[in-house]
């Protein structure tokens, strides 16, 4: 990003461009990304196929035979100069989590590493209000910022080839809610019955970038009831206004 705050346009071949607002994980930068995403969507640019909003940049994919790149860049620069990023007014998702044991096999290790009891680690993890910066990697995986820095934990040296669907994990200063079984080098603190991605349910995806997420510890004895409800299409997650 240049020093005057205007975004950089990074070429990704002739059919995509990444519009980068910064190189840090920062709610204000992310809000600009989402605001530009909304502005481009509203502008209905001919030839624009889809966009991928991430922490600090917006990847725009287009048909180079329809969209004239220089004109598009000028248009996007214009839109970026007059953005109205909204940080508040988000949806907030309340996600039930069973921590520890078979649900979060790394909980005790991570707690020990920080000199905390497992109970205290749960309190710290579950007391933050997280912002979903992006959905990515695999269907519906929510990448969250806002974790208490004191429990930041570097990723595992060797990623696990499989971690369960619904895993609630931390890696570095980030937190994550997984949707599907996936490889991961993050630390598994717990598991939620919430399906952030469920093709047979409407809505297919629950969490969007810009939403807030809070975790609500629940007892392992509740898992089966919640999981069956979720499998039957219940969101299980409560939604409120942030």
């Amino acid at each position, binding site marked *: 990003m240049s020093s005057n705050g205007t975004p950089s346009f*990074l*070429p*990704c*071949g*002739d*059919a*995509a461009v*990444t519009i*980068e607002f910064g*190189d*840090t*994980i920062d709610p204000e930068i992310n809000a600009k990304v989402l605001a530009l995403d909304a502005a481009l969507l509203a502008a209905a640019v001919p*030839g624009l*196929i*889809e*966009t*991928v*909003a*991430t*922490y*600090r*940049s*917006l*990847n725009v*994919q287009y*048909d*180079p*035979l*329809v969209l004239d*790149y220089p004109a598009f860049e000028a248009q996007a620069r214009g839109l970026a100069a007059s953005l109205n990023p909204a940080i508040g007014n988000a949806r907030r998702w309340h996600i039930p989590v069973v921590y520890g044991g078979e649900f979060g096999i790394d909980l005790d290790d991570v707690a020990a590493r920080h000199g905390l009891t497992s109970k205290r680690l749960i309190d710290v993890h579950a007391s933050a209000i997280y912002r979903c910066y*992006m*959905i*990515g*990697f*695999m*269907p*519906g*995986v929510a*990448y969250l910022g806002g974790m208490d820095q004191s429990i930041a934990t570097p990723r595992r040296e060797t990623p696990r080839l499989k971690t369960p669907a619904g895993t609630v994990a931390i890696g570095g200063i980030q937190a994550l809610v997984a*949707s*599907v079984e996936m490889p991961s080098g993050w630390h598994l603190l717990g598991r939620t019955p919430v399906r952030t*991605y469920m*093709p047979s349910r409407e809505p*297919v*995806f629950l969490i969007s*970038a810009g939403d807030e997420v809070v975790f609500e510890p629940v007892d392992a004895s509740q898992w089966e009831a919640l999981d069956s409800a979720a499998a039957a299409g219940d969101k299980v997650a409560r939604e409120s206004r942030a």
Partner: protein
Amino acid sequence: MSALVVQHCGAGTSLQDGGRLGWQRFGISPSGAMDRVSLALANALAGNARHACALEFTLIGGAFVVDGGPVRVALAGADCSLRISGRAIPLLTSVTAWAGETIEVGTARSGLFAYLAIGGGFDTEPDLGSRSLQSRAGLGGIDGRALRAGDRVPVGAFMLSGSERMLSAPPPESGPMRVMLGPQDDYFTSGGLDALLGGTFAITPEADRMGFRLSGPRIEHGPKGYNIISDGIATGAIQVPGSGQPIILLADRQTTGGYPKIATVISADLARLSQLRPGSQLTFLMVSREQAVEAARRLEAKLVAAIAAMAHADGNLLSSERLLGLNMVSGVVRG
């Protein structure tokens, strides 16, 4: 409704169309045919729109019995044999198969991905707007998976009319794969850039619809290292993890990634790239945006011309059908 019943097929046989567009923001890769040029040719011969759903074969073919029928099919892409109840049919020629007949696609003699299009298109229930298989998400295909023996693959409404058709594939491009630098070329040393643009790379056996892992001279990262804050990934992006060995990310790629991407293969070269088998060698050539767009226009014009020149299989030019063909291909390359 007519259907093809799978007798046997290779593990990499799946339904693919123009891709699942608009869902990368939720982590769903676009999928769709690896070689869009061959998909368009096969569909033109079968009388379909460019992005109609076809069967994509990876190296190994399969055998299918026609249920209901008749159906009109055509094969394009990797060089595989096509037989209808034992009769050999040339590539890029449509053929009608009747109820109870067997359609056999052989193992590819060259190339990697072959496309069997069928008049009316394959008519499974689309997921999120596409029939393309995305197995990690459990979307498209047959119940979210690849084809296997015993599957009954439904065929859309189709009226058999007119004679069989043939066409010639557009003259192939040869030479290096053309790339535009970026989005993170500033994460590499000048030696790293030289390695990419001057070195010879081989496609490793780790090549699939997600991406092609290459081996070659080490592409050296600069002082900023090899971790970026995850961002979006374009088709053809050349990602370089800590090993310095590049991976070209393709249709079933992850939607975001945290390794720097040194360059991106231009859209005009993605189809021919996808046909390179493991063991093939390739080099890269840096081009400008203007050159890349010009190459995309040239490829599109060649494709339109090839379809416009489609002829009756007995050698007579189509007349009104030819105009339909022209109209059919006026859509976008990736739309």
